């Protein structure tokens, strides 16, 4: 028996209609009887639908053959990269010497009107917004003045609105840290409008929501802050941005804590610790532990608070930031204070206050001073409170912080000197100092006193 030629078997398997009907019948009969030809035939007929479908899709071949979309996008990416390189060069001198007048002149020049300049200025603002918010504001203002004059169609997909949104967002961040809350809301309105023009972008609107939550929080508008924080958290979850989702969750828990509900805030902070453990993020573990410890203090669980504070402290001592380390040391000192070991607490609190002063964090130094005052009040040592208040008064004066805080400290001194200072007075001064840090124009009003004949 002669076998069917391989080519004919291939044709029979793949294009049977190309073979005459009689010959097809012969091949079929032969293949049924001949194992060797059957195997060859099977080889040609092997099919796998997924495989065939994927082979027929153009983008399977894209890495080999390219595509119009790939070419267009890579050209665009090259343009972005070139803009960034040019901006790096032309902005170097100005970013190193950020004088506002120079920026005003600079941004009116044509060669500075590029997306690269906006990106570079946004990045510069972001880099210094925590340490030098005033300079960040200068950068953000310059970025806005460039971004707003770029043509709407300079980039595909209306992407120029991304840059505008980002510039307004950077401005709001600086304003938040400068305590310019109404202005920050206005900047966020602009950012929201810009981001809203690009339907593909969900991230920008979530960033706006998170920042707005922060502004409301600082303003003490806690309900509105909570609404925004929840919105941001959902948005980041939608965008798969786990890091920022945790930022939003942390803020949400902080708002809950600030609203006087440590019991509801606590599980959120514990979720943040868990997230830190799962992602091996020492920073999240430390921040979550610190915040959870504060909740436990308010709940009266001093033992658990101490464990959590010490866990946070290990990380902050190793990695910083210094502010968080000091806040944690302060927390531990408060645990000692509330535990009734007043002398030990006073010693620890004095150390913390001195460090805050060294770092020029004068409001925190004053708040620690109020904790010391509580301990001294309990020990009936008002003269030392007078000295402490006098010291803090000069700290504020030397720092140029001529705000209502000075009146509050003067009140502390006078009340202690007159031996009529109460725990409620200290609490009222504490609440005022915390608000005055965010709102420097706030005036101190002494707490009301019951009529003399009622006590």
């Amino acid at each position, binding site marked *: 028996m002669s076998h069917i030629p*391989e080519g004919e078997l291939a044709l029979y398997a793949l294009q049977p209609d190309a073979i005459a009907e009689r010959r097809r019948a012969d091949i079929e009969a032969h293949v049924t009887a001949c194992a060797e030809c059957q195997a060859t035939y099977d080889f040609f007929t092997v099919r796998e639908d997924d495989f065939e479908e994927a082979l*027929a899709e153009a983008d399977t071949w894209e890495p080999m053959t390219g595509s119009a979309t790939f070419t267009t996008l890579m050209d665009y990416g090259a343009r972005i990269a070139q803009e960034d390189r040019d901006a790096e060069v032309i902005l170097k001198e100005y970013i190193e010497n950020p004088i506002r007048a120079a920026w005003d002149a600079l941004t009116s020049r044509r060669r500075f009107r590029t997306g690269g300049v906006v990106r570079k200025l946004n990045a510069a603002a972001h880099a210094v917004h925590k340490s030098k918010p005033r300079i960040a504001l200068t950068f953000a203002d310059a970025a806005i003045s460039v971004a707003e004059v770029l043509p709407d169609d300079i980039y595909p997909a209306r992407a120029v609105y991304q840059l505008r949104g980002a510039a307004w967002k950077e401005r709001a961040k600086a304003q938040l840290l400068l305590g310019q809350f109404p202005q920050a809301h206005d900047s966020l309105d602009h950012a929201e409008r810009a981001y809203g023009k690009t339907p593909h972008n969900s991230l920008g609107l979530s960033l706006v929501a998170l920042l707005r939550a922060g502004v409301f929080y600082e303003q003490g508008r806690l309900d509105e802050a909570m609404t925004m924080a929840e919105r941001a958290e*959902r948005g980041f979850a939608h965008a798969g941005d786990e890091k920022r989702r945790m930022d939003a969750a942390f803020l949400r828990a902080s708002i809950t804590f600030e609203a006087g509900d440590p019991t509801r805030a606590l599980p959120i902070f514990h979720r943040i610790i868990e997230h830190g453990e799962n992602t091996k993020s020492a920073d999240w573990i430390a921040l979550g532990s610190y915040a959870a410890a504060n909740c436990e203090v308010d709940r009266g669980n001093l033992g658990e608070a101490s464990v959590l504070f010490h866990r946070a402290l290990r990380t902050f001592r190793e990695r910083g930031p210094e502010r968080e380390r000091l806040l944690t040391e302060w927390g531990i000192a408060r645990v000692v204070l509330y535990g009734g070991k007043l002398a030990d607490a006073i010693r620890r609190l004095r150390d913390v206050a001195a460090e805050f002063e060294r770092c020029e964090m004068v409001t925190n130094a004053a708040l620690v001073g109020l904790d010391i005052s509580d301990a001294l009040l309990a020990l009936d040592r008002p003269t030392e409170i007078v000295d402490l208040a006098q010291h803090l008064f000069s700290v504020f004066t030397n720092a140029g912080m001529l705000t209502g805080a000075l009146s509050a400290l003067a009140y502390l001194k006078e009340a202690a000197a007159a031996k009529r200072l109460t725990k409620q007075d200290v609490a009222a001064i504490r609440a005022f100092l915390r608000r005055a840090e965010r709102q420097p124009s706030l005036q101190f009003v002494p707490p009301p006193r019951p009529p003399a004949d009622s006590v």
Partner: protein
Amino acid sequence: MTPAPPGEVTGAPASFEEAYLQFAPLLRKIAVKKYGIPVAEAEPLVHDVFATYFTNAADVIEVGPYLVGGICNAARHYLRRTDARDALFCGETPCAATPTESILLEVERKLLLRRLLARIGSRCRDLLQRYYVAGESTRAIADALRLKPMTVLICLSKCRKRALAAYHAMMETPRT
């Protein structure tokens, strides 16, 4: 416009090219399979999502989820089901931007197939591309390559079989 194959110097940052090659197939699949958008209509959406990302990449931490969220928003916007804001904040629970398991599986297969096609040799690659993508008949291929149609058929089958075997082997071998 003549498409430029990846791997040639494009001037775009390598991270852009990598992001595109890794995620573009997934974005297309989501637009087409999850939202029922025609293939040709999905392509501009994919383009716009990447263009938006390239323009302000510094704000993006998680590129993959960001792009997936982007294509979901773009697809919803395209379908005019909701406006942009509702696409982002759609109720109490996060929008289901996560692609389905079957889509992820398909994309994984495609990425495997891409790696495989890069390795099977230029002759096989050329034949398979002509036949499957360009839709050329075996006779047209034979004419272009100056071969007999029968030879083309045999080569095509052998290339397919070789590719399929390699494909199965790669599917079973965990990626390193």
